[in-house]
């Protein structure tokens, strides 16, 4: 290989990449807010015994877990406006699709965590005179949230990476800017490597933090 590296253009385009990163981070943030809140509500619904609630929620979760995020995104972008006659921005559609995708995965994380709390704690709560609601709020949920935390963070950082897909629906995120600069400057190696490194630089500390959080929650709940 006698390729001559030239980082000049990437350096020059760095502010533009940073703008893209900001869009990516905003998308990630909002998708996570939707994912954490909606996922929780869905999980609670899944634990009810009412079929009219459980079935639609199961359909929602399985649909989002069993189709590619890319098709979800493109579907939202192209089909939702036609079907519902709403014309929201690509950013908003991207945020919605990613948020709903994340909520489906998070719902499963919450549900698994809630079901992992030993039944003995229910007995102990009853013996202490706590009613059902008090038991759920003060005994089950705090433990479940601690237990689910590592998975929720992993899912959250996963959506950060998945968010690169929004470039395909013309959202000017980090990926979009990277590809644009790469074609403009004819420097795909330097540009795309830089973009990959930026994604890595954000993801890696978080994934390391997950290991730490996991160790601590495991120790706390081991009793």
């Amino acid at each position, binding site marked *: 290989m006698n390729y001559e590296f030239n980082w000049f253009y990437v350096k020059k385009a760095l502010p533009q990449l940073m703008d893209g990163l900001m869009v990516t981070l905003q998308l990630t943030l909002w998708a996570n807010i939707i994912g954490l809140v909606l996922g929780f509500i869905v999980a609670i619904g899944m634990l009810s015994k009412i079929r009219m609630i459980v079935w639609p929620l199961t359909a929602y979760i399985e649909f989002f877990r069993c189709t590619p995020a890319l098709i979800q995104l493109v579907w939202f972008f192209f089909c939702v406006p036609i079907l519902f006659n709403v014309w929201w921005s690509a950013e908003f559609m991207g945020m919605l699709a990613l948020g709903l995708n994340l909520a489906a995965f998070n719902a499963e994380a919450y549900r698994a965590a809630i079901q992992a709390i*030993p039944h*003995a*704690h229910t*007995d*102990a709560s*009853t*013996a*202490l*005179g*706590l*009613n059902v609601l*008090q038991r759920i709020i*003060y*005994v089950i949920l*705090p*433990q479940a949230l*601690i237990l689910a935390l590592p998975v929720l963070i992993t899912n959250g950082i996963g959506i950060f990476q998945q968010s690169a897909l929004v470039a395909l629906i013309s959202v000017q995120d980090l990926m979009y800017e990277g590809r644009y600069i790469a074609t403009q400057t004819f420097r795909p190696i330097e540009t795309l490597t830089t973009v990959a490194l930026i994604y890595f630089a954000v993801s890696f500390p978080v994934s390391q933090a997950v290991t730490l959080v996991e160790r601590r929650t495991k*120790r*706390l*709940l*081991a*009793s």
Partner: protein
Amino acid sequence: MAFVEIDGLIKRYGTLSIFEGFDLNMGSTDRLVLIGPSGCGKSTLLRCMMGLEDIAGGTIRLGDDDYIDGAPNGKMKLNRQVQKEVGMVFQHYTLFPHLSVLGNLCLAPVRSRGIKKSEARDKALGLLERFGLADRANFYPSQLSGGQKQRVAIARALMLDPKLMLFDEVTSALDPELVVEVENTMMELAEAGMPMMIVTHDMHFARNIATQVVFQERGKVIEAAPPKDLFGNPQQDRTRDFLRNVLHIEG
């Protein structure tokens, strides 16, 4: 009149029958120790006493109150006010791992009884002091030994001023050297006059703490007597067989 009156208790798990008309009385100064082969319903009896099991028939009275009125198909009536007067400690501690020792002790008084936080805290610290656990108040359960966890669990139950305490094999999960500290705590409670129902496999401890030992088998009381009589001069063949087996294994 007896302090606890169990009358005609019926308990089934599906087609498996645990009790078909079980009777037992207990006085207000009694410490009842239930012994018997595993699977004879000792723990189930305590769980019924705590209101954790649905009973298909029979009644339980506590003090002057109707407590549980059994009925088939989940129609059992349970007096929640009376239930609050019963405390229970389980084999596997069941401390809440996300709360500190103090948090475990104060949760129920503050959240369910509406006692002021500061008041609950003072009471908790008093109990921990009494049990020699004052320096563990801010520890989390995962930082405690098994014996300490179990003593915290006892303190947690005492926070609610129970009129009757149930102990379900509370030393069975402990390493042998930690058993004594828990048993000492229970002895201290006994000396303070707390009525108790205890399920244990430790015959030595049973002899020390009980005012009345109840030997049960297949859901029936075979023999009930003060410890020195039941251990020293058992009247029934089955009691003798059982004691010979367990004491032989232990001795």
